[in-house]
């Protein structure tokens, strides 16, 4: 059972990592702690994630970046003994407030995982899934949204003649783009991507990266990646996590060309052991 420690008012930034770089802030995180039982895995995370930009979270395994990204749409709620404190506000409203509609939150904040997870249904039904759950029955409306979502996910031309074929017959890279289309169908504002290309070959990876680049015009994207060159290629900002803390959060160029923290430098140059 999850216990949430709720903060009635968002607190002012206290951490040095709180950085606002004069952009529209979409997600504002303040003093966010996360615990699995007695173990504290995130310590005082404070950062402002800008709207319609790509923010990459990098750091060694176990540094808390996946826990953090899953906290944004409260995916961690399903983990027993997990609890959070501090605030994660989307458009100024704390998602951990007691009256948050978690289903609606997850519609606004879509998620794509490391391993693509299409349902054992047709390509069409996969993309239509969230819409039907939302009550949409109009075939024409569904058709339109499905075409638009698959087009945005750069998959339409590859599947338009076999929409009724099983999603499981698609290649790994196509399945991942299908999952992105499925997330886009319900018209989210934020896309969380937890290592979306780590299981893909270089060509499929580059398609996903191109797609991320295209999508940021309309969506706020947060991506966890172990591939630092990928973070450098696709993101506008990068946060370096280490032992549950944000060591440095800055423009991606600064992180990869002239990081301020020695620890960041050691990590991005591969000196870190």
């Amino acid at each position, binding site marked *: 059972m999850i216990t949430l420690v709720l903060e009635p008012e968002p607190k002012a930034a206290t951490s040095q990592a709180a950085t606002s770089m004069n952009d529209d802030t979409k997600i504002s995180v303040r003093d966010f702690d996360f615990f699995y039982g007695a173990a504290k895995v995130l310590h005082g995370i404070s950062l402002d994630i800008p709207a319609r930009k790509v923010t990459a979270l990098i750091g060694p395994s176990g540094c808390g970046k996946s826990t953090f990204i899953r906290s944004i749409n409260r995916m961690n709620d399903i983990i027993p003994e997990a609890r959070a404190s501090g605030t994660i506000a989307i458009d100024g409203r704390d998602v951990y407030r007691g009256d948050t509609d978690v289903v609606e939150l997850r519609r606004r904040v879509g998620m794509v995982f490391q391993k693509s997870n299409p349902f054992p249904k047709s390509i069409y039904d996969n993309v239509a899934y969230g819409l039907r759950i939302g009550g949409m029955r109009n075939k024409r409306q569904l058709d339109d949204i499905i075409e638009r979502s698959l087009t945005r996910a750069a998959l339409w031309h590859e599947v338009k003649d076999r929409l009724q074929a099983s999603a499981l017959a698609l290649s790994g890279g196509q399945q991942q783009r299908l999952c992105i289309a499925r997330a886009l169908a319900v018209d989210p504002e934020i896309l969380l991507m937890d290592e979306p290309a780590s299981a893909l070959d270089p060509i499929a990876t580059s398609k996903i990266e191109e797609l991320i680049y295209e999508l940021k015009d309309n969506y706020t994207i947060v991506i966890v990646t172990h591939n*630092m*060159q990928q973070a*450098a290629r696709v993101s506008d900002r990068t946060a370096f996590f280490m032992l549950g803390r944000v060591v440095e959060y800055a423009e991606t160029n600064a992180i*990869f*060309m*002239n*990081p301020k923290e020695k620890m*960041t*430098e*050691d990590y*991005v*140059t*591969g*000196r*870190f*052991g």
Partner: protein
Amino acid sequence: MTVPRHFDKDIEELNHLLLRMGAMVEDAMARSIRALLERDTVLANEVIARDDEIDRMEIVIDQKTIELIAKMQPTANDLRFVATIMKITPELERIADLAQDVCERAIELNREPMLKPVSDLPRLAHDAQAMVRDALDAFVRGDAALARKVIAQDDNVDALTESSFRNLLTYMLEDARNISSAIRLTFIGKYFERMADGATNICEMVVYLVEGKMIKHTALAAADE
């Protein structure tokens, strides 16, 4: 905790190559000054003959640098180091070319009667030489303060070039037979000034390497911010 990387060996090797090239360039510059001041044609010819070695060195460093970028995709201080090497190497090669030019003019001067001593020119040559030496020291030690000091000396070298030119101009006005030598010496003054410019460019890259700041084309005041 930092771990050793095989990339560090590549970086070390590149550093070593650049320092070898730097030593060769310093040597060429020192010999060109001696050949000029001592009217030593044999020495001047030696400098000219050795320039190919420096050119070959430049190619070796370029290839090694491009290889490192392709294979290692350097970031942060590694990236700044590789970028610095790429920008410094052609500066060094150019300084060596200018030393060669000094020697060519020196050989031509030796075929003509000696002009009255021009006091500014040896000073100019030695100041430019000191700047190149200090620029290389700043690179080796990663010393941005020394690099900035070298950059500040460039104005002094420019002033010496100008005064040496005025001096030579009076000789030309005095006696038309001086014109040929005086023009060659004017060229030589310009060569040393350009070597000092090369040292300045190297130092700007040293500041970038150490601090990540691009101070090129900005006033020193801005660089000191």
